[in-house]
């Protein structure tokens, strides 16, 4: 539980997770760091959209936050 107006990153940290993503190249575990939108370490998939900066998004009830597992998948066959 976090106060209203807290970021999704804060919610993840408050819930006791010590990693929010795996880095794209080597798969290292990372957690939110700067909490102000400049380090890009807090990337998570939020409500189905990958690579969101979770520290810049206000958490809402029902928000789906998933770990960002390496780089985002793209489908080159999309028209």
């Amino acid at each position, binding site marked *: 539980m976090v106060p209203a107006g807290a970021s999704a990153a804060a919610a993840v940290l408050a819930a006791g997770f010590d990693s929010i993503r795996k880095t794209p190249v080597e798969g290292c575990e990372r957690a939110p760091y700067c909490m102000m939108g400049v380090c890009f370490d807090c990337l998570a998939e939020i409500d189905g959209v990958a690579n969101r900066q979770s520290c810049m998004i206000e958490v809402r009830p029902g928000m789906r936050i998933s770990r960002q597992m390496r780089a985002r998948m*793209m*489908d*080159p066959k*999309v028209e």
Partner: protein
Amino acid sequence: MTGMPTRSTCFMRCTRVLPKTADENGGRYLPNSTVTEAGAAPGDFRIQLAGGEIGAPKVVLAAGLGNAALARRFGLSAPVKPLKGQILVTERARQVLPMPITTIRQTVEGTIMLGDSQEDAGFDTSQRPAVMQTIARRAVLSFPWLRDLQIVRAWAALRVMPPDGLPIYDQSERFPGAFTANCHSGVTLAGAHANLFAPMVAAGALDPELELLSAKRFDVSAAA
């Protein structure tokens, strides 16, 4: 070619490796040192910096747009001008584009870089949204799947552009020992510069085939 580093990745590694390599080979890397004065004689160059003077038997002018003014002091000509380009950078995606295209390149880390705009804007490096829109629109025309990628950063910068777009390589005839290299881009041509140009400088003479790329070609009356 999967996972081949694009020039953006290589350039970043260069800026880290250059000072280290200089240091390991008995050189000195002096950042933020503007040349204030210079004296030139064949095989004898004295360069004034804010922190003191450097003397050397050879000098290579590789200062990009700064070469235009510096060149004259060393009996050289480097008529380069700035050409503005803008770049859009996407979030990291899994490898989809294993080979670089002129305007769309994916780095080893997954970032996709979009660009190749050209503006004659002097030394102004501000971004123009209309240019960014055109870059994005053209990229999506090529690959519709790019549409869903988020742009994480964008910037504008200046290319070092000779009058005909081709490199300028010279050794000063008035002050032998002073060399210059000018091009867009030094990143693309890094291999040629390291493996061909640098040994020529070390040997004290540029190969005759580089005559075609001398600044003399811009003197139409002399070249005719």
